């Protein structure tokens, strides 16, 4: 007849949590749209619709109540993270494939909300970069002078994909230049002379990264996330990049560059902090995020992919259950024994 105690509950819900994550992403989306181009907004819309449709179909097939689960907002968070990690001018079907795979395979085939061992958005990124490496590596050139209509036409395939419109990311460009230069290229020169670099990282992108940082700090202040994961992730990248930079500043970029390039800030605050696929104990979070940071750096600097965030986090997702098991904190009254 009645629900049991406690009879009073805090005003909170899954959809409130997810809504706040979306709100925290808005500064970065605004910066992205302003500095890189409005195409991101189109991709966000495509991803959101795909995610909700896939979610609805999967819920229906599992006979789960749509009215309860569809508005929980988890699919929208996944969709937005996918849109923000894919190239903004990628053809529409690429983000549809990625989102569909994330929701259907990475989320619902593993049991749905709260059950996925891997971060769905990162699964989407990994699947697409392995399957469509060329399309996933085409990023708009700096100073892209194309109207929203032109960009939509490119995304929807009505306009040809002009090569001039697309290039490598600042991270990828640096790696390629260093490789081609074979030791004869100096990073300081690259940063100073190449047009794609701004004040301390990629032109434009550095401010998008700063906006992720801003949104992330807001989530921390709202207690949606704890400090452990962003701190350990950023600290481990700073440590390894700093060490190698001190060792050879001509061949290794400085820590600031790494923090504000690629997906570091997005990964630190929005992806590694996913509690479903990550660690949950305080010490576990530190280990998980430090490992993810280290792997991110290794993959992006020494590996073959433009950035390492997705693979680093997926690899650490694999380790999360064991890390949690081994890092159970001592409980009230038992701290001496631990």
């Amino acid at each position, binding site marked *: 007849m009645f629900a049991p*105690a406690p009879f009073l509950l805090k005003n909170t819900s899954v959809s409130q949590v997810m809504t706040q994550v979306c709100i925290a992403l808005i500064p970065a989306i605004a910066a992205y749209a302003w500095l890189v181009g409005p195409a991101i907004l189109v991709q966000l819309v495509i991803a959101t619709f795909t995610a909700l449709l896939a979610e609805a179909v999967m819920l229906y097939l599992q006979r789960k109540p749509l009215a309860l689960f569809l508005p929980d907002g988890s699919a929208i968070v996944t969709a937005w993270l996918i849109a923000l990690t894919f190239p903004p001018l990628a053809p529409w079907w690429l983000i549809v494939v990625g989102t569909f795979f994330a929701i259907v395979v990475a989320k619902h085939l593993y049991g749905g909300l709260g059950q996925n061992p891997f971060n769905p958005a990162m699964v989407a990124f990994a699947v697409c970069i392995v399957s469509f490496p060329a399309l996933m590596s085409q990023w708009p050139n700096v100073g892209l002078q194309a109207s929203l209509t032109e960009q939509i036409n490119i995304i929807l395939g009505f306009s040809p994909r002009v090569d001039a419109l697309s290039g490598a990311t600042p991270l990828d460009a640096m790696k390629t230049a260093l490789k081609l230069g074979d030791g004869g290229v100096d990073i300081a020169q690259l940063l100073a002379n190449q047009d794609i670099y701004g004040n301390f990282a990629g032109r434009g992108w550095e401010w998008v990264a700063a906006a992720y940082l801003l949104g992330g700090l807001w989530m921390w202040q709202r207690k949606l996330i704890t400090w452990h994961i962003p701190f350990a992730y950023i600290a481990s990248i700073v440590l390894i990049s700093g060490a190698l930079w001190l060792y050879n500043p001509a061949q290794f970029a400085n820590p600031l560059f790494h923090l504000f390039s690629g997906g570091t800030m997005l990964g630190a605050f929005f992806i590694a902090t996913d509690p479903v696929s990550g660690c949950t104990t305080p010490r576990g979070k530190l280990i998980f995020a430090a490992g993810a940071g280290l792997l991110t750096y290794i993959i992006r600097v020494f590996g073959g992919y433009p950035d390492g965030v997705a693979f680093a986090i997926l690899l650490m997702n694999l380790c999360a259950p064991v890390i949690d098991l081994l890092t159970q904190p001592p409980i009230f*009254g038992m701290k001496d024994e631990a």
Partner: protein
Amino acid sequence: MLMNLFKFKGGVKPPTNKTQSLTLPIAQAPLPSRLIVPLHQSIGGTPRPVVQAGDKVLKGQLIGKADGWISAAVHAPTSGTVLEVAMHVQPHPSGLDALCVVIEPDGKDEWIIHGPLDYAAMTPEAVREHLQQSGVVGLGGAVFPTHGKLTASKTVPMDELVINGAECEPFITCDDLLMRERAEEVVRGIGIFRDLLQPKKVLIGIEDNKPEAAAAMRAAVDALNEPFLVVQVPTLYPAGGAKQLIRVLTGKEVPAAKRSTDLGVQCFNVATAYTAWRAIAYGEPVVSRLVTLSGNVHAPRNYEVLIGTPMGELLKLAAPHPDTDGIVMGGPMMGFLVPNEQVPVVKATNCLIAHSDRVFPPKAPEMPCIRCGACAEACPHELQPFELYWFSRAKNFGKTQEYHIFDCIECGCCSFVCPSRIPLVQYFRFAKSEIWAREREKNAADGAKTRFEFKQLRDEREKAEKAEKLVKVAAAQAAKKAAEAAAAAAAESGAEAVETVAAPITAVDAEKEAKKATIAAAMARAKAQRDAAPARNTAAVTIEQQHAIDDIEARRAVLEPAPQTSAAPPAEKAE
């Protein structure tokens, strides 16, 4: 009072809802139409009824005798006639029946002869005994017999005596008003506890949302010239949990596996101190307590209520709104809906809240856990509730124990903060009760196994004895035959033959005697074990059954007076 306070991790801040019931002073609830007084009102043994239907009782007269040391006596809350001693529904979420003495008040509220005790002349043992006989139990809600907590550890010095006036649960204000209006008696009661435990310090913890209570207590402490410290602790649920308050005031953390006295600290509720003082200074047993009436009512207020008052009748005093659809006993965080309106107020009843959707909005449907960790942040015992949830759900009870499920105090903080609206505490209660049930089953099975093995052993032994007897008979016959043959044959070789046959017979006899002694010892041990472990199914019996049991016991005592005493000494040695 500057003192260094400690913090406990976790905790939540639900809306306190205390002001409603604080506007008026404590009022005396009128005599109800009848009183249903459960005999089992404390942790420990169920008191035995000492009255029967038709008996006239006086207020304060013993109606239930404490059963064992951890048990507390029960008394008639008013004068009147015992209508029946029968099973009635208890104020417990299970809705189980238990033995109650039902009294029809005569309206005179006439006390049994009682008076102050000569406290100064009493030994500590006599004080404890008297508190037990007066039915003094922990009125904070745990109802542990108070006298059982008034013995300091022999090895650990008693550092702090913590007095709990925190009252952290929303809605409840009975301790607040008790401290405001009867601070002096509370402080005198604390003095008794201090005398018995001899702590180095006495700390009275009161949440800082009760400044009037703290001021009243301070004034009383000063007036009585006691060295007690009244400490205002931050308002944070569950600061009033004994373990949390001990942590805040002393920095000590008492785990589930330890007793607080092992850490040199003991904790009592302010209302318990008050009743202890009444018992010593006036000779009054616990027959009433303060109850907050609040929630969906017109006139929330605190009442002095007789134990046994039907809850529905009591709640009418506060004029519940027509949409009231249930009564919550306790606070909104740890309370429960009582099975019906007839269930009586007991010593654990600190608050009744009229339930309605307006006061407690219906909960949103449960969603899957997203492992957000909000529960772990809120848990005052620093558990990982979401992990416990997965294991409880999967009925992986071994794992729940590894993750310390028995350290969970069921405070409800995890459920309170869960965005997925998972009734986490219910999952933990389920897991705990399953573990207990399995433990009982295992013990029962172990008992059966032991009994079976003993029976097998006995059967084998009897078989062996039979065989031996046959051998002996055969040997005797053979000996007889041999003797006859020898006698018949010749006189010169006769003596030798008899000797050779007689020797084995005596050897067999000695062996048999030894075996007999072992058997007797084993049987004595088994009997002693049976005697030592009293049958547990007599915990809740009706008065008729109790009489029948008593009769049988009496007959038994007449029939076999000796064996029980003679069997006991070897059993003690055996252990």
